[in-house]
């Protein structure tokens, strides 16, 4: 190296920092990063889930539906069995906001009833001279809220002396909207109770299979295969036909939910088993075994929490098939029986072609079924995508 080069190097301005040296300064995290890296698993799941717009909307719809079933009595304009014998098979009324060209409070038109003697049909014609304004938060049919508290406040009521059939009436003159709202209480909980049953069975049986492996596993796997090779609906039909006729409706309701749950648990058991098989080889599991933990504790305390999110997602995806199953069973007349009202029981009245031709509004209970099933599907999809936030 020549002397010139050396001199030019020493001529460079020399900088010395007087601050103490911090070796971690490069890796310092901003507050936002800190928040991200220290987030708990469930918080991360929530962040991931929030990105799935459709799932969030579906979740909101489901939440609204489940809150609504708490207040059926208030939301429904009429009681479950209130009969309006003058309005049998009345078609749905339209809500109007304009009366003779002027803006008005929402109202429906009263109708004139005439029996068409030629084909014996009841004809209801809206009468333009009989506007019946809808009342809000008003006193109407009496009810016992949750069978405990007496009340008569409704969100919507017909005008005094008038009628309000937004979705029409059935063959006994009962308001279909009210019946759909009450039916939600049964239809929406059937899936929940059923899934609770299959969740319990799935975790216990799948847990045993996955934890012990070997022969236990093979036997349980074969058993699951046997159950899965039955077509569900015919098996449900057979089992619910066996429920004794003497049972009270509420017992039948629990019987049906248990039957639904008893067949659907297989999917959950499979999921539990395959997860356990891979997880039980992990170090933390071996450590627990060495410390003398019992199998039940290892499964419950160490293994299950590591894939609880997956389980909840798969359970959510099982609910819609149960709701559809109950609807189908009740539609066929093998499921729930009339004093209990579910959407399937309501659809039971729409069994033949003449209903489609003459009283198509009787098929409306299928709309909430479709909405609920879709919402559960999207919600479950979103949950499943979010279930493993570390990937």
């Amino acid at each position, binding site marked *: 190296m020549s002397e010139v080069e050396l001199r030019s190097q020493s001529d460079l301005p020399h900088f010395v920092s007087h601050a103490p040296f911090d070796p971690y300064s490069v890796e310092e995290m901003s507050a936002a990063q800190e928040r991200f890296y220290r987030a708990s698993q469930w918080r991360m799941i929530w962040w991931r889930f929030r990105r799935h717009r459709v799932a969030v909307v579906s979740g909101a719809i489901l939440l609204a539906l489940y809150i609504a079933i708490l207040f059926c009595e208030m939301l429904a304009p009429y009681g479950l069995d209130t009969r309006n014998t003058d309005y049998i098979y009345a078609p749905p009324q339209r809500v109007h906001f304009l009366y003779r060209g002027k803006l008005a409070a929402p109202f429906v038109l009263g109708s004139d009833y005439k029996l068409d003697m030629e084909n014996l049909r009841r004809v209801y014609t809206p009468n333009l001279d009989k506007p019946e304004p809808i009342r809000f938060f008003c006193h109407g049919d009496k009810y016992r809220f949750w069978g405990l508290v007496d009340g008569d406040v409704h969100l919507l009521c017909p005008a005094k002396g008038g009628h309000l059939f937004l979705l029409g009436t059935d063959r006994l003159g009962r308001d279909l909207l009210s019946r759909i709202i009450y039916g939600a209480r049964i239809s929406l909980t059937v899936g929940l109770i059923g899934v609770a049953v299959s969740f319990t069975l799935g975790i216990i049986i799948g847990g045993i299979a996955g934890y012990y492996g070997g022969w236990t596993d093979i036997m349980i*796997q*074969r*058993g699951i*295969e*046997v159950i*899965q*090779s*039955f*077509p*569900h*609906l*015919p*098996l449900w*039909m*057979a*089992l619910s*036909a*066996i429920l*004794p006729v003497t049972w009270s409706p509420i017992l039948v309701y629990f019987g049906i939910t248990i039957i639904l749950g008893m067949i659907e648990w297989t999917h959950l058991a499979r999921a539990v088993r395959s997860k356990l098989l891979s997880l039980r080889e992990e170090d933390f599991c071996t450590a627990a075994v060495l410390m003398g933990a019992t199998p039940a504790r290892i499964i419950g305390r160490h293994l299950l929490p590591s894939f609880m999110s997956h389980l909840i997602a798969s359970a959510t995806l099982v609910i*819609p098939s149960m709701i*559809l199953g109950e*609807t*189908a069973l009740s*539609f*066929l*007349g*093998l499921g729930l029986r009339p004093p209990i009202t579910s959407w399937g029981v309501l*659809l039971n009245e*729409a*069994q*033949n*072609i003449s209903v*489609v*031709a003459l009283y198509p509004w009787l*098929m409306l209970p*299928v709309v909430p*079924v*479709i909405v609920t*099933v*879709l919402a559960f*599907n*999207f919600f479950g999809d979103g949950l499943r995508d979010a279930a493993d936030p570390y990937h």
Partner: protein
Amino acid sequence: MLGYLVRRILIMIPTLIAISIVIFTIIHLPPGDYFTTYIAELQSQGEHANLAKIAFLKAQYGFDLPVWRQYLTWAINLLHGDMGYSFAYDLPVTQVVGDRLFLTFLVSVMTIVFTYVVAFPIGVYSATHQYSTGDYVLTFFGFLGLATPSFLLALLLVYFAHVYFGISIGGLMDPIYVDQPWSWGKAGSVAAHIWVPVIVIGTAGTAAMIRRLRANLLDELQKQYFVTARAKGLHPVKALFKYPLRMALNPFISDIGSLLPHVISGAAIVSVVMSLPTTGPMLLDALRSQDMYLAGSFLMFMAFLTVIGVFLSDLALAALDPRIRLQTGRSR
């Protein structure tokens, strides 16, 4: 392959035995068996002529034996093609059933063919055109198909076909052919009627199948071998059909296992609504009147159909994928 076949059949036999035990239990679950009621009814009417018949039935189906002997008699009779005795019809089940088993089989197979034919192109389109308008529209209809109860679809279709096309599509054949022996005319009539139930039953399965094919194909399309194939200038269609599609096809075939129970379930309820001469309506009737032998044999037939279907799909899969036939049997 032969080894795999033998192994697979050996697994199938205990499965079938277990299924038959479950069904026999179901037959015997209702309190008070039909046979005792039947005899009491006959005797209260003072019909003595049938006593000989009762004795014959007792011997044939072993009603006075212990339960496990009854099961054996039932199972052995089943193997001989004797499915028990329908008390509601007062005929052997085999005679009551008639064409129904065959027609159920026909409808199920047609539905599966329909599902594949429709789901395949749509699934491939959906995956290759991810997030396009077409994909969104198809996805929307797919989900709608999944969520709509099939009996409602059946009702609507029957109604609209009647109103707009003036055809009556209840049943599987024109009324003149009912209870007639098979002929070309009858077969033609069945072919003209079968498409409506097939579409109705197939909708939900098709929707599910499209979703799965799309997901599988999307996974494959992201992999490096496909990117490489495209990068070196392979024609997109050829690149797609040659590699990723074949990979995505495996679950497609193995899906028969989960598709068949769905199809048979769907067929049961749709055929009640459309009054098809298949097993569905008769199963419902049998269950309502607690004619358990009839119901049991339908259940057995449906489960048997499923097991055979899964078996066939496993064979097809093994033929397609050497990895599977070398394993110790696939757990479906």
